[in-house]
Every structure is written in C-alpha cells, then in structure tokens.
C-alpha cells in the first residue's frame, strides 16, 4: 500500500493538484494564469541557483579529480559550501563600471545573457508530464532563444570600451553564429525521426528505445556533433575563445566584477545544464526509463525509478562529459575553430540529415 502512495506522488501530480486548488480558489482564468506564472518563476529561480552552485562545485571537483588535487575542502562538509562563500564574496564586491563604457548596455548585457539562458528552460521536460510550457515548436524555440545570448555577449564586449573585450566579443559572434548551424541540423535529424517539434512528443516517441539506439549510426553521429557544437555554442573549453584567459585575459567579461560577473558565470552554468538537458531529451529519451525489448521484469524494475531521476541522471552524465572536455584539451585557434565547423562538422551534419531523412522515409529505424 505504501509503495503505491510513494509512486503516485510525483512532480506532475503536485503540479496538477496545485493547479486544481488554484482553479477552485480563484474563478478568473487570468488570475490563475498570473499566479501560476509567478509560482513557476519562483520555483525556477529556487531550482536554478542551487543547481548552479552544485555545477560550480561539481566542476571544481571534477577538475581536481583530473588534476590530482583535492579541490575545495574547507568551507562546509567536503567543501560543498565553497561556492556559496564565493557568491557572498562576489555580492560584497564593488560592481565597477568603467568610466568610458556605455553604461546602459554595459549593465544590461549580463541580464540579457542570463535571461536568454533561463528562457530556454521553458520547454524542457523535467519529469513525466512536468514541463513549464509544452510549446508545439519546442525544438525551434530552443534553438532560436539560445542564439539570443550572443547579443548579450556582443553588447558586453562592445560597451566595455576594452580592446580585449571587443576581440572576445568578435570571436564569440563568429563562433556562435557558425556552430548554431550544426546544432540546428543535429536537432533536426531527431525531429525528422520523431516527426514532431514538441518536446513531449519527442520524449514519448522514445518509449520503446532511445533515439541514440533506435536511430542507428546517423543518430550517434548527430549526437556527437551536437555535443561538440553545443560545447562551442556555450563557449566552454576547448572552444572558450571568447574568454580565452591566456590570450584575452578574460575576453568579453574582462571589465565585469562583482555580481555582474557572477551573472555571466550563472548563465554559463545554466547554459551547460540546458544543453545537456536537451541532449538528454532528444537523444537519450529524456525522463523515459531504460527499457530492453521484451524483458518485462527488467522494464518494470526500471519503471520504479522516478522519471525525474532518469532525466537528471542522463543530464548530469552529459554534463560530466562536457566537463571532462574542458580539463583535457588545449584551446583551438580562431581560424581552426571556424575550419572545424565549416569544413568538417557542417558538411557531415548535412549528409547525416540526408541519411536520417532517407531512414525516416523508408522506416529503417526500429
């Protein structure tokens, strides 16, 4: 009896009962909508800030593990509160605005970057039937909103009145615009297979197997391309040319300090999460448990694991991979970066899309 109670309490049931309760209490439809929006916003912030703390902690621990160090180990148990302490420090720091900078753009840039990365969270399915906005053009929405961040970066670089910042912003512009093509094409290959742009449909289409298994080699190719291109799109090493520390000191955010700097950091980690979540949703089945054909018992055991844990597990697996990139590879040069995209990734992903289309037409996938 207890087991059934445990199983019925899920994120979707909580959301449904909150909605039910609000609809009963408030009769105006618009009132319910507004209150729900506020609740969603607060919940998202309450989720994102600890998430970024955790990702920052995780990154430092992964780095330490790869570099034979201990990593943070002083503040809190096993150093887990180190990032909180860092945030407090950044809050107390003076948010310096250079005298020659364009003050309005300079202060707005970090906001735009953070808002753009938060907006992408909307269509992500965190658990079964638990999604902020199941928009019918989910994948298109994701790829278009995520490209807004480049505006913030260009703004930051231009308004800082710093040559390093400007160079970083120029690099970032070239880089994000190029790599979006490959990201888009690898997303499209899954859209073709699933036959829908809606995130929930894409997850449901993976009920009998994740696309990375069902889609044969083309799906694996587009998964790899997605990982490479999205690492470049979120400006992480080995593609962190926009902030290339050894060349441009800190690139586009050289002049930022205090909380404005922290917002760029926040956006970086949200982007990391979003990209991994999308990869998990499209290629690894999102919240869908791992099922093997006709192994009934095995599948039932897998179903016992809550869908949110499946989703988070897959997402963090991909985050771990992307973090390992950062601590293994040297950085590419700007011309090599563009060569990689335009001469290798883009033609391969175009061919791959063609293959996937043929596969979908002839129904060669499982």
């Amino acid at each position, binding site marked *: 009896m207890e087991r059934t109670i445990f199983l019925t309490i899920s994120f979707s049931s909580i959301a449904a009962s909150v909605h039910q309760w609000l609809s009963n209490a408030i009769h105006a439809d618009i009132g319910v909508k507004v209150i729900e929006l506020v609740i969603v916003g607060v919940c998202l912030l309450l989720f994102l800030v600890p998430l970024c703390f955790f990702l920052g902690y995780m990154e430092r621990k992964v780095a330490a593990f790869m570099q034979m*160090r201990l990593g943070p180990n002083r503040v809190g148990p096993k150093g887990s509160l180190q990032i909180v302490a860092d945030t407090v420090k950044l809050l107390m720091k003076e948010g310096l605005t250079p005298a020659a900078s364009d003050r309005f753009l300079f202060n707005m840039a970090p906001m735009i970057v953070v808002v753009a990365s938060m907006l992408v969270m909307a269509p992500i399915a965190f658990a079964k039937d638990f999604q902020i906005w199941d928009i019918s053009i989910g994948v298109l929405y994701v790829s278009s909103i995520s490209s807004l961040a480049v505006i913030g970066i260009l703004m930051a670089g231009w308004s800082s009145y710093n040559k390093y910042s400007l160079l970083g912003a120029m690099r970032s512009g070239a880089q994000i615009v190029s790599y979006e093509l490959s990201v888009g094409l690898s997303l499209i290959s899954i859209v073709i297979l699933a036959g829908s742009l809606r995130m929930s449909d894409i997850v449901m289409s993976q009920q009998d197997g994740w696309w990375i298994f069902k889609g044969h080699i083309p799906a694996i190719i587009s998964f790899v391309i997605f990982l490479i291109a999205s690492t470049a799109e979120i400006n992480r090493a080995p593609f962190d040319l926009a902030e290339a520390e050894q060349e441009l000191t800190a690139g586009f955010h050289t002049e930022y300090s205090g909380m404005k700097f922290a917002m760029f950091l926040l956006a970086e980690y949200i982007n990391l999460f979003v990209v991994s979540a999308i990869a998990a949703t499209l290629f690894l089945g999102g919240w869908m448990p791992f099922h093997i054909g006709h192994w009934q018992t095995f599948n039932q055991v897998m179903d016992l694991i809550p869908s949110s844990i499946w989703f988070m597990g897959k997402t963090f697996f991909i985050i771990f991979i992307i973090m390992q990139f950062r601590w*293994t*590879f040297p950085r590419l040069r700007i011309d090599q970066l563009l060569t990689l995209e335009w001469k290798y990734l883009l033609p391969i992903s175009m061919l791959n899309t063609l293959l996937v289309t043929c596969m979908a037409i002839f129904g060669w996938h499982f």
Partner: protein
Amino acid sequence: MNLLEENTVTEDGQFVINIGPQHPSTHGVLHLKAWLDGETIQKLQPHLGYIHRSIEKMSERLSYRNFIYATSRMDYLSAHINNQACALAVEKGLQIQAPPRAQAIRVLLAELTRLSSHQLWWGCTGLDLGAVTPFFYAFREREAIMDIMEETCGARLTQNFCVPGGVMYDVHPNFVSRVRDIIKQVREKFKEYDEILTGNVIFENRTKGVGYISAEDVISYGVTGPAARGSGVSCDVRKWFPYDGYEQLDFNEILADGGDCYARYMVRMEEMKQSANIIEQLIDNLPEGDFQAKSKTLLKLPKGEFYQRVETARGELGVYIVSEGGATPYRIKYRSPNFSNLSALEEMTIGSKIGDLMAIMSTLDLVIPDIDR
C-alpha cells in the same frame, strides 16, 4: 577617455593592443605592443625594463664570493646554472679547478635544474594553449625535484650552492637515493606527458608550422638553446665548450629541423630525457674526495678579462668579468639567453594570430627577469 589615437587604431586601420605588463601568459612583466589586422599580428614591439634591477652594476660592489648569488635572481628557473657560470668564471681567473666530486655535484644539480625547468615549461606550454591539466602533472615531478634541492641546498628555487672552487657543502646523505627515485619516476611519467599533450590533435594543430624561424635567422638573431636547436642549429655549450666534466659524459645534443613551435617543443621533451641520462650516469659513480678546492677567504682576481659560457635551460649564458686586480669586479656583463631569444619573437610572430603569439612565447620559454636583469 583621452587615449591617444596612435595607441588605439593606426591610420591604416590597424588595431593596437598592449599585451602586458600584466597579462596571464607573458609569465612576468613583459610588455608587448601588437598591431593587429583583425586577429593577425602585423607588427610586434617588446617593451622592456619593468623588472630591471641592475644586477650587473650591483655586482661591481660585491666581492667575488658574493656576486655569484645575485645571478640566482636573473633566470630564476636556472638559478644553479647561473651560479655555476659565475663560479667557473672566477675559477678561470684564479686558475683553480673544482675537485671531481664538486664538479659531479654541480653537474647533477645543473641537470636536475634543467629537468625541473623544462617540466615547468611543459606545464606552462599547456597552460598557454588553454590546457590546464598538464600544469599539475608537471608540478608533481617538479615538486619532488624541488624537495631534493631543499634538502641539499636549503633553498628550493635560488639554490646558491656554488662557490668559487666547488660547492658550498657536501650533498645530503639522502641525496643519491632520492635522485635515483625521482629519475625512475620521471622516466615513467614521460609517457603520461606524451599522452595528455604531445599526441593531442589540437595541440599539434596549434604548434605545427607556427612561429617558423629559419636557421639563418636563428644565427643572425643570436638565438640559443632549445629554441635554436629546434631550427637545426647546433649550439649546445655542453658539447662545444665543455665545462665541469661534461666532456666525459655520454649524452646527445638534440636537434630538430622543423623550426616551428612543435620542433622546439620536441627538442625540450627529448632534452629532459637526456638530462635524466646524464643524472643516471653520474649518480651511480659519484667520485669521492673534496667538495671544495682550497682558496683564500678574500678572492682577488688578477688584472684581465675572463669569460665563461654555460648552457642554461634556455640557452647560452655568458659571464664576462673585467678585473682591475681588486677584490671586486671592475665590470660584469651577462650575455643572457632570453634577451637574444626575445629579439627573434617579432620575426617568428608576424602574420600569425594572437593565439599563436602565446604558443610562440611559451616555446621560446622566456623568463622575464633574465631579459631585464
């Protein structure tokens, strides 16, 4: 802001940026002024003097025993080799020779210094190219060598172990066994070095064909050390003008003919193995005897000019002493390897990207205090 136009954008549209004196990859207070077209470097001008301490002038007031230790602060990564050069120059003037044990200890410490210096360089090369992890791998072995230095000399970085006529003390009883251990460890870890950086495709792309300099240019700029040997110019002082018993040791001068960053990188990687070879040869048959030749307390060099060159981790260091017969040198001049190597930087860099500049600087392995002295 009232910036001068010439310091921001030139008339023909070149973008001027100042790299340094505070910059993560100049490894010190070097100031480079670069004229850019997009990201391509059109012109490069090093500005020196930020860390000039007039070591040469200071030496004129110091006795022949004391001036040696000011040189530890020039190329601080080859501190012991700098000291050795000065000690040898003074010995030349006094016409004494260090006993065999002292020579062996000097060479052992010199090669350990070279090994640890190259390890630091390897870590920094990774760091300059954006790979942070190699730095920690390099420091693992470097720390062990530094510990040996600390036990033997009492200092980790500025060893100050050479005196005219030998070394200051005999080695620590643990020295031999610890050096054997570290050589074994270093030999094992070379494979790891190759795995994480040398064989990496991004690393090869970043260094192959980058920062090319021909053998003729190497000679005309006076580039020495691994940077010159990367272009195929044979210039190892240990082979050409042996000192402290290098002539009895079996080692190779590493030459590469690429002339690019990758060639210079490979030369240094092989040099580390050669240093390990030399240490292995010496550590098993360290001669018995005195560690210091007998000399007067107050040294006075006869009137004349004395020159001694040694091979530091970065190239040829020359010590030129002019003596008037007194207890202090009349004039001292150091021919520092980094100053000449830096002069070739512009030749290597023109037409490259900013990212390449970092790769080129790291394979030149510049130590800024040695440039300014």
